[in-house]
């Protein structure tokens, strides 16, 4: 084929035609990219203008729906939704009430409820995310109904996330825990976020104690993964459950062989100023638990100087280093011990102590 072409008297005509075609294609491609860029920019400007218009209507109008053009295109729905979600995230009171009313007045909730049944999974997921951002209690039953028929795992996780922002009472937490246990464990961060949302929703409605009841219920429930129990404790840590100290101590005592739970409990308790388990955790056979305790040792356990001093020779590098840092934060006696270790024969302990002393000096 190549031979026929090269020997053809029209060879150079073919080459010229091919180069011209390539040139035309390149020009067309550049034109298309420029057109697309302009289209995206126009759409972004329109979206920002609509967002601004929606926010202004919420501030100035008694009935904002009267001022705003009804959304038709997807980008118009998206712009209104962003403005409304932003208002609901940041403000409460009259303006939030108007924002909630706007959702139904402009048919935004109906639109996204329809999209939540779309055949493309990411469109369904996006619709669920937007509906979640509105935190409308009326969406609870809808979320549950969609969850039952939803085939995509990714969307189901998003529905649970949306439901976690609506938790108000004990039954909601149980229902969420049931839905969550029916799906494969996703990540620690996801589960923690779910429980964090639940705690903050409950706190907002003055029923924080309900979460304590739930945690007590699952403590010895073998059907609930220990990972999930750990994530509950971590969520308590993040949300600062001041009233859950007793329960966290119970978790610490009930799971001596579960370092992940012990670490979370030590951290969560220390966060609310409870160091009752820290001293014991310093002696735990698992180095990760000892490490978690060492991070707070300077706040509670400096009377355990010999034990902490001995941890400078710990087999774990992280423990040695943090023991040195804990001593550096302690009183004069601790720093004397640290200086002795820095000049001592154990190279590992000496290096950790020297590092802590330089950090302290800095």
């Amino acid at each position, binding site marked *: 084929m190549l031979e026929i072409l090269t020997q053809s008297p029209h060879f150079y005509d073919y080459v010229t035609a091919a180069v011209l075609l390539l040139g035309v294609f390149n020009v067309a491609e550049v034109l298309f990219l420029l057109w697309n860029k302009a289209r995206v920019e126009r759409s972004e400007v329109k979206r*920002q203008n609509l*967002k*601004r218009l929606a*926010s*202004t209507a*919420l*501030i*100035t109008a008694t009935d904002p729906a009267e001022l705003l053009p009804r959304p038709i295109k997807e980008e118009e729905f998206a712009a209104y939704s962003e*403005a409304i979600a*932003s*208002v*609901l*995230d*940041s*403000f*409460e*009171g*009259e*303006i*939030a009430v108007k924002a909630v009313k706007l959702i139904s007045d402009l048919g935004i909730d109906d639109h996204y409820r329809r999209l939540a049944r779309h055949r493309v999974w990411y469109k369904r997921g996006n619709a669920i995310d937007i509906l979640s951002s509105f935190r409308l209690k009326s969406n609870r039953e809808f979320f549950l109904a969609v969850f039952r028929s939803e085939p995509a795992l990714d969307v189901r996780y998003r529905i649970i996330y949306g439901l976690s922002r609506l938790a108000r009472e004990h039954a909601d937490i149980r229902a969420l825990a049931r839905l969550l246990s029916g799906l494969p464990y996703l990540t620690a961060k996801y589960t923690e976020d779910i429980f964090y949302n639940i705690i*903050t929703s409950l706190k907002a409605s003055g029923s924080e104690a309900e979460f304590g009841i739930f945690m007590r219920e699952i403590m010895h429930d073998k059907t609930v993964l220990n990972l999930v129990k750990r994530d509950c404790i971590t969520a308590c840590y*993040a*949300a*600062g459950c001041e009233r859950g100290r007793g329960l966290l101590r119970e978790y610490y005592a009930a799971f001596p062989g579960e370092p992940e739970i012990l670490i979370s409990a030590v951290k969560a308790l220390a*966060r*609310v100023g409870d160091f009752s388990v820290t001293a014991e955790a310093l002696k735990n056979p698992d180095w990760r638990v000892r490490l978690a305790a060492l991070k707070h040792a300077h706040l509670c356990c400096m009377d355990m100087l010999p034990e902490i001093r001995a941890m400078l020779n710990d087999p774990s590098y992280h423990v040695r280093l943090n023991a040195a840092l804990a001593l550096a934060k302690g009183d004069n006696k601790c720093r004397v011990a640290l200086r002795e270790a820095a000049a001592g024969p154990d190279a590992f302990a000496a290096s950790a102590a020297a590092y802590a002393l330089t950090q302290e000096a800095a």
Partner: protein
Amino acid sequence: MAKILIIDDDETIHLICRAYLTKSGHIIEEAYDGPEGLVKAEAFQPDLLLLDINMPRMSGFDVAKKLKENPATKNIPIFMMTSLKQEANIQRGYGLGIEEYITKPANVEHLKLRIEKFLQSRK
């Protein structure tokens, strides 16, 4: 009448805060990220600064730290307004020397009253 600088990346927050605060006769200056906020704080010398935490380029904590380190801006009172409700963040904010830590969602009328009361107390 006071000069108030709003540093937040969300335009909706700017619109709403500006609308409510200008109604009370305050002069509003706005910045959409930390570096812009730092420049405007020095130039505008506001009587109060409303500061978000989660922003692009620089967090509100870093902005507050830099403002307090700069002799030209260290006396500007800061109200942090954020959705971060964790105790550690609240303590971190107060540790940096801010005046108020307001968690979202906030009632905009109450926010206005708190600002008014604070500005009155500084007179």
